[in-house]
């Protein structure tokens, strides 16, 4: 992370609100994120907007891995996005914003630009 950009940590939900292996949608000021919890408990957050369909649905994609990358598949046209980088695997010109995630106690927090 570029430390000169001020970020603000926003509490969004409890850990238990996200089943392992699934995702949820998160309302952020002026935007939507998709928050994922993989089967081993790691947390990731990306834009919720699917750039190929313009629908806010990525939180409903299926999680998995392709090679050594962890990915989510868009439920609309099935493109894959790297959970770590937001990069689309099928189209190198497309990538999503990645939101850092933190857990404090049992609360999940996302970082958004302040």
């Amino acid at each position: 992370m570029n430390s000169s950009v001020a970020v603000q940590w926003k509490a969004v939900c409890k850990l238990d609100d996200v089943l392992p292996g699934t995702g949820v949608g998160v309302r952020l000021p002026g935007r939507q994120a998709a928050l994922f919890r993989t089967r081993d408990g790691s947390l990731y957050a990306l834009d919720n907007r699917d750039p190929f369909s313009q629908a806010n649905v990525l939180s409903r994609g299926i999680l998995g891995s392709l090679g050594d990358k962890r990915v989510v598949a868009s439920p609309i046209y099935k493109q894959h996005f790297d959970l770590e980088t937001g990069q689309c695997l099928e189209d190198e010109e497309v990538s999503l914003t990645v939101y850092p995630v933190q857990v404090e106690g049992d609360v999940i927090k996302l970082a958004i630009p302040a």
Partner: protein
Amino acid sequence: MAKQQLLLIGHGMVGQRYLESLVAQGGREHFDITVLCAEPLPAYDRVGLTSYFTGKTADDLSLVPEGFFAEHDITLKLNTKADVIDRVARTVTTNTGETLGYDKLVLATGSYPFVPPIPGNDRDNCFVYRTIDDLDAIIAASKDGKVGTVVGGGLLGLEAAKALHDLGLQTHVVEFAPRLMAVQVDDFGGGLLKDKIQELGVTVHTSTGTKDIVDGESCKHRMNFGEDQYLETDVIVFSAGIRPQDELARACELEIGERGGIVVNNHCVTSDDSIYAIGEVALWEGRIFGLVAPGYQMAEIAAEHLMGKCEQQFTGADMSTKLKLMGVDVASIGDAHGNTPGSRSTVFMDQTAGIYKKAVISECGKKLLGAVLVGDANDYGNLLQLCLNEMDLPGDPAALVAPVSDGAPLLGADALPDTAQICSCNNVSKGDLCAAIDGGAMTVGDLKSCTKASATCGGCSALVKQVLDSELEKRGVEVNNHLCEHFPYSRQEIYHLVRVGQITTFDELLEKHGSGEGCDICKPTAASVFASCWNDYVLNKPHAGLQDTNDYFLGNLQRDGTYSVVPRVAGGEITPDKLIVLGEVAKKYDLYTKITGGQRVDLFGARVEQLPDIWRTLVDAGFETGHAYGKSLRTVKSCVGSTWCRYGVKDSVGTAIQVEERYKGLRSPHKIKMAVSGCTRECAEAQSKDVGVIATEKGWNLYVCGNGGMRPRHADLFASDLTDEELIKTIDRFLMFYIKTADRLQRTSVWLENLEGGLDYLKQVILEDSLGIGAELEAEMAHVIDTYQCEWKTTIEDDEAVKRFKHFVNDDSADDNLKYVRERGQRRPAFEHERIELVEEA
């Protein structure tokens, strides 16, 4: 240069192939083409004629690609028979009184059935078996008859006998010779065939000649055989051989063979340079070829010759045949009778199993000259190749007729030379198949569509598959049907692992048999297999992350991220009250409403957080989920049948409801559609469904593996005249076998096309229980049915589950990005350009 006039007389199988070959070579640039067709229909598949009795329509049998005549600007005159050829004036006069000039003339008039000169052979209800018109007449006559008789026990006679049998007549075959199929098989083979056919309920009279046909007492006719011997019958079909239709040529004094047939040279040119003859009417070196493959070869050669290309010549043709007569495999290859001097035979015969095999071996003991197979013709392809390519026998000649032919190839497909003809109907060589494989063909279905191999009689399909497998392997294409990178198994293998290992969760499956974390391919597949095997509630926690969003939110995801709601309306029958509930719900939530092709109502535009409320209302009103979102049974469409329709012979709606209620919720490799029609008018279009049921006066006819959609496929008749119980039992087994063995996202149509052994094999497994798994399949189906639950009912009763129906985890509001426009009185999601306008307006 002005175009020349080309006239083709006869538009049968060979005539059509000639036209196709000619236009492919650019023949239209040099010739104006006119075709005279004596029949009311353009060329159709005469080889498949008998399937007209088992559900194929004249349209299905047509050989003419849609728009063919218009596209190539060829004039086709139906119902028009050539009466006279004037070779001096170069004209042809037709029965419609027209006179047409020609520069080149092609005769493809085929043959006509020979009717033995028996007094009384012209009585009513005496038929031949050659055209669709003939079959229509036979069908009409059999309606009020009880007994049917075929005169002639050759290949076509036995096909005709099968048809009469299928039409419900008590059937007899009267053959003059001492055995059936005298041309193709020997005495032992013929004897065994007779036994097998009699077992099926057809009475065979060999060494029997008919003296005359007179009025009968119990039936319409009496056929007198000899000394007080006679047979009473209502319908008679003559099938005593064919004769070349060479009348026209005789009258204009073209050279004709002693026993008929228009004499042609190696380019199919007759004694007049301007006239060609092709197909069954042509006589080459004193021989007539009564099969379609040599006719096709002649068509190609004659078309090339017309275009000035003379390399290809007709050099005779192999007359080997394989067919299934009344469920009995019969094949004859090369010198079946051992007429070659010095040849010896090795024979295997098992009368209990009804199998007879004979191989005719050359004097030196190294080559196969011919063979006869009755009851088990699995080795036909291999033996034919050995014989045609004059290959050295791989081992002991006796092995050729060894009792167990487990399909294990006698010689690998590898051993065949590139020139080996694999599909004789369509003249496809091994080299042609290899070229198609190089061009990207990966399945038997691909090869069929690009080379036509196995598209006609299907006799070559096992061999085509062997060539495909060995060639793919050679090219280093791992014939790999692994599901995805996480599981080195096919869907079928995963299914097996899950069942045998009693695996119930994805984590367990991945740990035991996979690697990585899974993906959007293997997770939903596993979920579907778990559901097929154990039928757990799909939203149980361990399964939640496996589901495609459709299954997760129990609705169909639409392009703007909202879902559609489709309650089950079994059989398409709905009470007015329930219809009103649907209307009220749609109105309340402003859902776009549309009637689906599956006879139910689709409500579009429901947001995730609205789904539980909508469904609560629906469930309270007695609706259940329609599983429109799942790879599972969709709908069982029905016509109104005997409930109201004046033609209905059975209660199609009742049966559709019963079937839909039985299989609702059944998870499968892909969606399954079904339909039930109340009579053969087929208003429910059952023959385009995975499972189609059609009522007849005698019971239900079951069709399988049809498809609409992207690759339409006409369903195959699977079983006839079933009772209600038989129908259900057969569908139980069929569906469960499909679920067990199909690949991911493989509809039944593609599954069948890739199933080794095809329809016959499927019938053996399901109807004859050849694998002994019938009871198991039924038990597994029973489990699924017993554990059915409406997923929506379960969901709305489970607070935990309902919680998940939110767009935002941290906010109860709706997705604020949804924008709609109204069109034709309802709303739909705005397109990108409309969105921009909407935003500007705001």
